[in-house]
């Protein structure tokens, strides 16, 4: 049995919107430092699970505990903000603020630490600015610090999103299809970057993976979802990409 602390624990978790069940009776525990891939077709419940973990949707039955906080009926906004600040995210659609520069987007990662009113005007403490610049340098995007992110390519923006996650200095990284809509070279670069950073920081990684060939590259463990149900939870090396594909049919 692992001696590591549980980071995310789902016990009989259901998520439904009206009569539509998005996630049904899901049970798993993710421990600190684990690298977990979630796979499943569209509508399998992957994004719903990620949204529930970050408190953007509610678990309607069962329980979901994230970083020691029960997310069920979490009313206190400051507690929710605290949980969110400890989960960095790299989203499928990048989700950068297009009209802001790369450095301003990265600085948003430190919003929970620097809450002064000056940050409303994008005036950040010097140490935050230095750390954000260092994060951009780490992902090889220092040259684009002053560039608006809507002028960058898909791969470049994804690197800025990773720099923002890095700057958040969170123990958990959630990545939702981080290589979607990237060409093969850019996708390789992003996967290498994520795995290197997770190793450096000893972060827990929960990553929704659409490209099944990359599961073993990104994760040590794989959770397979189909039509809202968890159908497999095993070491990533147990199933080949074609076996995973077969399970999803």
């Amino acid at each position, binding site marked *: 049995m692992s001696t590591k602390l549980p980071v995310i624990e789902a016990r009989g978790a259901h998520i439904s919107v009206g009569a539509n069940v998005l996630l049904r009776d899901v049970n798993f525990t993710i421990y600190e430092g684990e690298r977990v891939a979630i796979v499943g077709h569209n509508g399998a419940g992957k994004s719903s699970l990620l949204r529930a973990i970050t408190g953007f949707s509610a678990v309607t039955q069962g329980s979901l505990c994230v970083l020691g906080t029960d997310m069920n009926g979490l009313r206190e906004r400051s507690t929710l903000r605290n949980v*969110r600040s400890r989960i960095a995210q790299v*989203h499928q659609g990048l989700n950068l603020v297009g009209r802001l520069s790369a450095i301003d987007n990265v600085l*948003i990662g430190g919003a929970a630490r620097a*809450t002064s009113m000056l*940050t409303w005007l*994008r005036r950040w403490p010097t140490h935050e600015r230095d750390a954000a610049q260092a994060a951009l340098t780490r992902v090889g995007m220092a040259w684009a610090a002053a560039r608006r992110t809507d002028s960058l390519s898909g791969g470049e923006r994804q690197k800025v999103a990773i720099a923002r996650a890095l700057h*958040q200095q969170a123990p958990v990284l959630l990545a939702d299809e981080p290589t979607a809509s990237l060409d093969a070279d850019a996708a390789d670069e992003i996967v290498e970057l994520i795995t290197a950073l997770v190793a450096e920081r000893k972060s827990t990684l929960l990553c929704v993976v659409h490209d099944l060939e990359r599961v073993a590259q990104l994760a040590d463990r794989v959770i397979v979802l189909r039509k809202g149900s968890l159908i497999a939870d095993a070491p990533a090396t147990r199933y080949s990409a074609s076996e995973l594909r077969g399970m999803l049919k």
Partner: protein
Amino acid sequence: MNSPSQSTRPNALTLLLIGCALLVFASLWTLAAEDELSLGRKPWQNLQRTLGEMSEPSFMRVWFGDTKSEVRDGDGKLLRTDDQQANERQYLAGIGRAIWTTLRIATLGTALAAIIALPLGLLSARTLNAPRPVFWLAKGALDALRSIHTLVFGLFLVGIVGLGATAGILAVALHSSGTLGKLLAEAIESLDANPVNAVRAAGATPAQVFFLGVWPGVLPQYISHMLYVWEFNIRDSTILGLVGAGGLGLLLSEAMSLFQWGRLSTLLIAIVLMVTTFDALSRAVRRRLV
């Protein structure tokens, strides 16, 4: 398969067209019955005379006017000698001053409207989830401000703050804040929620979410809307003088009351030039913003 009753039932568009036709017919019928559709006596002669006089804009007299124009009474007695060139130069200077006043009314009115519209627009944007009573209050205020015309506000405000530009500025500001607030709320509602949620997901406070996620997305649109409303207000401010709220409208009213069609023609040319220039300027800036 459709039942016979379904296939013969008129569709919504047909019903709408019938409704519109009935409304047009009823309007024509009732106005004619009230003798309100008359074109007056000798409309063609009047039109020809007016157009004839307007075809000689008064500003031409600056160069071609009589420097010793004699003004006589009905009996032919010489009352005074006028220098038409000097008179028109003075009148043109007056138009210049009125244009400047009109521009200031439109600009200050729009600036004030932008300030009033900001909180109302934010509170009435559905996606920002203001408390329901506050939301409805803000939305109601915007609807009320937008539905009262600037000229009506002008009439009302002249009675409160007196004749002059202040009434004009306030009238423009009140009506435009309704329009700007609604446009701001719509801009916020149509904003892509994903970047905003990404800021929220970083553990940002609600104020940070607004300033770092929402505001950068809507600011260019808000400025663009402000310029558009300013453009509109320059046009609107030209008639505010008709109710004593300052600007070109006063000169328009004067020229029309005294049947000075040449001067009216000069005024209309000045208005067209002013509006066209500022429309082009505003459009050029707005194109660069979006």
